[in-house]
């Protein structure tokens, strides 16, 4: 077997494994559901997930340690991950190959020439990492930032060094670094306060593994679900079209340029490209001169110019050059190429500076709108266990794992409910799923790869056992809209919300009210056993027979069992005997009026989902009183609960 086929097998294997792990990320009892499958493994192998959440959240969470393996191997071998393991890379390569079929060798070689826009991905990476590093910047900006000053300055020195290297140590570069440092510090000082300077993990938007995971879980698999496969029940995800469109665009552009996404956009590829500059081995040409037949260039995946000055940071180790060179000139070795190589990407100082500054400035300016302060969005109800908003955004990579695993299907990718910064982060939509947030379920937190949603135990979620003292986790509060509620506004019995409230004792309780019907003021005209004839307009026969209607005469209220157009038949014979013609009589409906107990409601949304007012429900959950952000508490005297 040729080495190229080994590589193809590896790509097929990892793509298959990735899709398999997407498929099994659902609850159920069969072996092809969650059964200890390492469903987060690809996300954990992703050093960009690890680095961005580390910068923003200050810790490398559990399984993200796997990323060190990828980094170590990249430092040793180069961008093997892109060429051999990345499922997105495999898809890009396959579609790029489709696009190249039938083209002449020269044409294909032309499409694979290094392009200046390949720098773009490094700027995207720097932008995203700068956005994630805002927290460190913010902490340094605080009085007495202490150690954070050192870390921030260290990072700044690194950034300056990168700029320096990129442009050569010229006078202008030095000045550039000094100006950059100045702007950074002014930014830190100016935008600090009010908690708006903070790290935000925006990398998940473009990081290929979260991107593909999200696209498969929220767009591709649900399309199969809706055909009756996998879950066997329809699934809906709001805004799935945009998620699918991004994937379609990323994949489709390969027809124009092979591995378009990998070459021009992919921030993970950029990160691995930067790491590969220290790699021990690299692709190399044995001799500087060759026949220039272009066979290697025509099949080069990374657009790294294998026959000329080899751009090592762009090489994805596809080994096509190794395979196609008729003179066996290509090799993989410790010495640089005989035709020369550039190990580091050829970046522009200005581009780096701008992406660094704009990345660092983006989050503060997004938050200047107050979305994390007084103007927080109440419709953004987060899953149970989600960290407070600032720390949540410092960890969530928008991979969609929580949304896929949620058995109710209520966890949805946010459009703009959580602000632009929260695009595709999980929010609950109680209309779209098949129920509320299930009381006895903690699946989402246990699947979250970065612990943006903490893995809760049932005891912690329900506030029992060792957690009895702190009460249950609340994700919001149900508010009644009395103008839309059937009993409150329309005189019709209902209380479906109360029935479905899963808390014990129920957070929704009722108060009994007997309300006169419209046109229910009557007078007794005749009493005959259990039958009472009434004055006034004709009744609709049977309309009062449901068991919820009563006749009240002089303080005595009796249930109606049946009615004709002029008379009602009472369920009990005691009483009417004493009633006389001419007495005032009221037709009444017995209503149980729902109320929400603020101290008991956990915001699960079962009430909203089941409310028969199925458009804009008469009871709706919003995030007030959620436990994760204490400042949003409603309950006086709840102490630590608030």
């Amino acid at each position, binding site marked *: 077997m040729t080495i190229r086929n080994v590589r193809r097998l590896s790509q097929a294997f990892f793509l298959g494994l990735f899709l398999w792990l997407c498929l099994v990320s659902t609850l*159920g009892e069969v072996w092809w559901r969650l059964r200890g499958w390492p469903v987060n493994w690809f996300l954990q192998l992703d050093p960009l997930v690890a680095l961005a959440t580390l910068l923003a959240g200050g810790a490398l969470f559990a399984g993200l340690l796997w990323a060190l393996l990828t980094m170590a191997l990249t430092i040793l071998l180069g961008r093997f991950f892109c060429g051999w393991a990345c499922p997105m890379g495999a898809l890009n390569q396959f579609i790029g190959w489709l696009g190249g079929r039938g083209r002449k060798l020269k044409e294909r070689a032309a499409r694979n020439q290094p392009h200046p826009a390949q720098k773009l991905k490094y700027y995207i990476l720097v932008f995203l990492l700068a956005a994630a590093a805002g927290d460190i910047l913010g902490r340094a900006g605080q009085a007495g930032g202490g150690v954070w000053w050192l870390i921030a300055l260290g990072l700044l020195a690194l950034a300056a060094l990168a700029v320096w290297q990129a442009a050569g140590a010229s006078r202008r570069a030095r000045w550039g670094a000094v100006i950059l440092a100045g702007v950074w510090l002014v930014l830190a000082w100016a935008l600090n306060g009010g908690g708006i300077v903070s790290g935000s993990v925006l990398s998940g938007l473009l990081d290929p593994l979260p991107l593909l995971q999200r696209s498969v879980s929220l767009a591709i698999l649900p399309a199969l679900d809706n055909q009756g496969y996998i879950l066997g029940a329809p699934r809906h995800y709001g805004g799935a079209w945009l998620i699918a469109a991004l994937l379609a665009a990323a994949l489709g552009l390969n027809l124009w340029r092979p591995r378009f996404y990998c070459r021009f956009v992919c921030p993970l590829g950029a990160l691995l490209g930067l790491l590969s500059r220290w790699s021990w081995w690299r692709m190399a040409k044995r001799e500087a001169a060759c026949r220039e037949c272009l066979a290697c260039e025509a099949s080069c995946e990374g657009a790294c110019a294998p026959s000329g000055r080899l751009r090592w940071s762009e090489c994805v180790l596809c080994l096509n050059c190794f395979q196609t060179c008729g003179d066996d000139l290509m090799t993989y070795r410790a010495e640089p190429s005989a035709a020369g190589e550039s190990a580091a990407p050829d970046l522009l100082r200005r581009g780096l500076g701008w992406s660094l500054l704009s990345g660092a400035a983006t989050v503060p300016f997004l938050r200047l709108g107050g979305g994390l302060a007084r103007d927080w969005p109440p419709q953004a109800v987060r899953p149970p266990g989600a960290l407070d908003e600032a720390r949540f955004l410092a960890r969530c990579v928008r991979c969609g794992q929580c949304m896929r695993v949620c058995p109710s299907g209520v966890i949805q990718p946010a459009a703009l409910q959580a602000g632009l910064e929260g695009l595709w982060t999980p929010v609950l939509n109680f209309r779209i799923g098949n129920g509320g947030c299930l009381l006895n379920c903690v699946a989402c937190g246990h699947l979250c790869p970065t612990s943006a949603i903490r893995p809760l135990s049932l005891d912690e979620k329900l506030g029992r056992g060792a957690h009895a003292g702190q009460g249950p986790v609340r994700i919001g509060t149900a508010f009644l809209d009395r103008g839309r509620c059937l009993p409150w506004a329309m005189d019709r019995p209902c209380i479906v919300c109360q029935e479905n409230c899963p808390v014990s004792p129920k957070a929704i309780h009722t108060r009994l009210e007997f309300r006169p019907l419209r046109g229910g003021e009557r007078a007794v005209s005749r009493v005959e056993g259990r039958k009472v004839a009434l004055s006034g307009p004709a009744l609709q026969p049977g309309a009062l027979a449901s068991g919820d209607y009563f006749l009240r005469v002089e303080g005595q209220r009796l249930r109606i069992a049946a009615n004709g157009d002029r008379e009602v038949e009472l*369920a009990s014979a005691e009483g009417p005997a004493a009633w006389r013609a001419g007495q005032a009589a009221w037709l009444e409906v017995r209503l149980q009026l729902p109320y929400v107990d603020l101290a008991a409601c956990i915001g699960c949304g079962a009430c909203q989902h089941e409310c028969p007012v199925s458009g804009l429900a008469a009871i709706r959950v919003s995030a007030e009183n959620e436990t994760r952000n204490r400042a949003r508490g409603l309950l006086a005297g709840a102490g630590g609960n608030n």
Partner: protein
Amino acid sequence: MSGPSNRREFLIRAGKTGLALTGVGGLGLGLFSAGPPPAQPDGQTLPELPSYAAAGTQGRLAVARGGERAQGLEAALKALGGMEQFVKSGERVLIKVNAAFASPPAVCATTHPQILAALIDLCRRAGAKSILVTDNPIQDPLSCFELSGLAAAARSGGAELLLPRPEAFRRYTLPGGRLIVDWPVLAEPLLRADRVIGLAPVKDHHRSGASLSMKNWYGLLGGRRNIFHQDIHGIIVELAAMLRPTLVILDGVQSMLRNGPTGGSLSDLKDTGRIIVSTDQVAADACAADLLGKTPAQLPFIARAQATGLGNADWRALGPQEVEASGS
């Protein structure tokens, strides 16, 4: 334009044009509709449902006291002459459980898996060819069946669990019905069964007063069924009219006295130690009202069901078999 090659060309072109014109015209005329479309889309409708009652078994009721669920069920059925009276060899049995919520068996908000397992076993021993278990729960069906232990009980008993997939529903109109009119009903399991057994827990229900055997058929409805809570007693009676079962079984070994129908806490339950088995769902519900500390008169759906001719609210008049199941 002359010569054989030109003539051939002419014929070919004329043929293509003719085909295209015929195709377009034919398609247009074939799909032509002079009138507007109907106000509602057409749907597959379900014919009237048969009675699932076994011949000559009407008006029977047994109450077993004490013991485990399986013992109580077996004792009560024995008192009625054994399961063979109701399920004959080779018949297909549908068990309609209450799997409404994704909650553990201990809180008794759903049919207890022990009694489902016992019932499956009894049907099997009576010679049932196939046993189906179904419900259209309120919450995610899979979570409900798994967490309640009902899926495991069905699996281990060799019964088939039928989840409420969209295609399992058909539109149905109850003859003389006022509420169940052109409404989606979980039809597939009903059409696949010769016998239907309702297996429900005894629960408090704030709106209707009690969730018993007649209310259990609510889980056969699809659609936005919650609008029927406006006339809860009316819908319960129509459901009982729609579904004439072989048997109803009420598990009152523990009854949910408050916070129903979801419960959620062991303190909502009381040991009431009864299993009620009846061919008369009205009588069964009237008998179970006592376990919740209510009288049948407090539950308007019972009187209305009797008035509709669906059964006898005076369950004692049926000459109930009362047996002890404990000590075995």
